[in-house]
């Protein structure tokens, strides 16, 4: 009989190995799934993981990994700060939308003025928008003790309505023949986040790398980072250490909101180009998976963001080359989180073979 026995201390080895095991298990069971669907499993897995990186058209897909991965990493870094402290911001998708709206709004207000300061102001606007949206659950939690999970999640749907209203009203392209959607910021040089479209580099990619570095320093070298970790791991000890829990809530929610808002701004000023009804594609939710897959560690998140981007892009190739249905790819991505959580048990527990005697 197999028994689970709690480890006296979480296993360091398993903590590092979990993501790898989860990825391998996903490949294996994903392959089985594809086989049941009548596809060659080896070819499917190869298409998803190998094709975007080293395939014939990798010169096109590698930059796309940056485009797809940057917002995920940027948002996940922000979320990880809160998750570490046990503060659950589930509404990054909403903060992403509002950040994009405010940032794009700033840019569109200047149109067609070409000046160096337009883009920096948009960046500030984007960060502010996301921050302000996250302040709603933060202040409600601090002031009235509401649950930040519910409030932040519900605000996503409010933000979506806001987005629809903006695409159809205030920000609608006056030259767009009455169709919804704003002007395309890619046609407005001063409001553009692209550095080089050929290499997939835009300021959001730069920001994602900077966020990784800052978050690493914050968590490992800074008192505030220590407080964040302490609050999550030992709330009572944190209290004795003089951590002000309310201030911490405001800080981490504000920070994750600002980063999500930035991600939205860089997206709308770059890859997406315009505010439209379907501007948000779920980065804010996928980033939750990325944060956990990366073990809430900045470098881990960077790697996890890359991996997630890979499954997206490889998944699209598999769809069109092998005729895999979109839902099979989504199941595949879901498996990743499932196996991660399942294998995670081994970090805190060990398997024990017992003779089947019950004491």
């Amino acid at each position: 009989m197999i028994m689970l026995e709690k480890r006296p201390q979480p296993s360091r080895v398993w903590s590092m190995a979990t993501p790898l095991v989860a990825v391998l298990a996903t490949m294996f069971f994903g392959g089985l799934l594809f086989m049941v669907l009548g596809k060659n499993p080896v070819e499917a897995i190869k298409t998803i993981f190998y094709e975007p990186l080293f395939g014939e058209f990798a010169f096109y897909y590698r930059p796309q990994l940056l485009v797809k991965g940057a917002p995920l990493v940027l948002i996940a870094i922000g979320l990880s700060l809160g998750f570490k402290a046990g503060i659950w911001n589930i509404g990054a998708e909403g903060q992403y939308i509002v950040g994009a709206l405010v940032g794009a709004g700033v840019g569109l207000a200047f149109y067609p003025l070409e000046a160096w300061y337009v883009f920096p102001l948009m960046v500030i606007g984007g960060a502010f928008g996301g921050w302000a949206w996250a302040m709603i659950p933060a202040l409600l939690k601090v002031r009235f003790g509401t649950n930040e999970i519910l409030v932040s999640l519900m605000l996503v749907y409010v933000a979506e309505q806001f987005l629809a209203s903006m695409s159809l009203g205030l920000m609608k392209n006056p030259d767009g023949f009455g169709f919804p959607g704003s002007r395309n910021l890619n046609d407005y040089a001063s409001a553009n986040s692209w550095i080089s479209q050929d290499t997939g580099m835009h300021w959001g990619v730069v920001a994602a790398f900077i966020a990784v570095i800052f978050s690493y320093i914050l968590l490992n070298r800074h008192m505030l980072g220590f407080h964040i970790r302490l609050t999550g791991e030992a709330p009572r000890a944190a209290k004795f250490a003089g951590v002000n829990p309310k201030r911490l809530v405001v800080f981490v929610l504000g920070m994750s909101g600002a980063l999500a808002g930035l991600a939205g701004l860089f997206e709308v000023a770059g890859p997406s180009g315009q505010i439209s009804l379907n501007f948000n594609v779920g980065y804010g939710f996928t980033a939750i998976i990325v944060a956990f897959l990366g073990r809430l560690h900045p470098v881990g998140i960077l790697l996890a963001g890359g991996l997630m981007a890979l499954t997206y892009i490889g998944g699209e190739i598999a769809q069109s080359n092998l005729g895999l249905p979109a839902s099979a790819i989504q199941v595949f991505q879901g498996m990743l989180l499932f196996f991660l959580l399942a294998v995670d048990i081994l970090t805190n527990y060990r398997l024990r073979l017992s003779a089947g005697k019950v004491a």
Partner: protein
Amino acid sequence: MKLTKLLTSAALALGMATGAMADTTKVGFVYVGPVGDGGWTYEHDKGRLAVEAEFGDAVETTYVENVAEGPDAERVMTQMALSGAKLIFTTSFGFMDPTINVAKKFPNVKFEHATGYKTADNVSVYSARFYEGRAIQGTIAGRMTKSNVIGYIGSFPIPEVIRGINSAYIHAKKVNPDVTFKIVWVYTWFDPAKETDAAKALIEQGADVILQHTDSTSVLTAAAEAGNVIGFGQASDMAEYADGPRVSSIIDNWAPYYIERTRAVIDGTWETVNTWDGIGRGMVGIGEITDKVPADVKAEALALKASIASGEYHPFTGPINKQDGSVWLKDGETADDGTLAGMGFYVEGIEGDIPS
């Protein structure tokens, strides 16, 4: 632009390689929803299968479903062009800018964008005059309603949808002056849960006929549950509800167009066109009108269909006023395509505002 050059030469090399190997023409389809939605995307996929059936081994079709409108769409199209597609159909309004962007990078690949308005040397646009079908739907709805309240589930307040509402309203009002429309916007093309909620809300407000401009069959399911409520198949026939609430349908029939355009690419005669066909050319079909509809109403609807098909009658024929009471079309005047394409106003009598 280094990448552009690289992309073009890669596509060119590939085109030559595949051309040398076999005479298969690759045709790609980009779908906004799942092929199993039973409505919009389902009909486009039927068109794709018709292309395969028509040309057999001479074509190879691929598709990607559930593509989000935005940067993801651009990547999917690029990927198709890179892997050698010669013709790519992008089947949702929101794919417009991505289609134009990708088309710039692949001048040798032909693109066909559904329901948009931007064309280029290698980008055609096509759409169907769904409002012609709405006129027939409105006639049946106006005759059938007992509560005189007709519910309408709108997807997005874009010209195509507004046109449909206006057309249905004008023709319902024509046969039943007491009719009122209740309009709910759900801001999605396909979301069974939201569509069900909207249908239930409309039924609670007294609607006994529900018209929908969304793609799932969930509205008909909700109507069936409520009983005594009728609806119409949207985009697809939805004939499985014919014993229940579905009394007729508007069917998008893309197959002839897809076959014609694929043939043009194979023959090398493809040119940029702006196609907007209706009942007359068979792009819009009217699904069988069931026995729930009295024979005289059915005959009236079919007569209207015939007169629209022959071009004898235009669904937007004056006198028609705008919602604010100002004159839009004078007596006997018909709407021009430009105004219809960008329609952003309700006609007189419809209550409520277009959300903005």
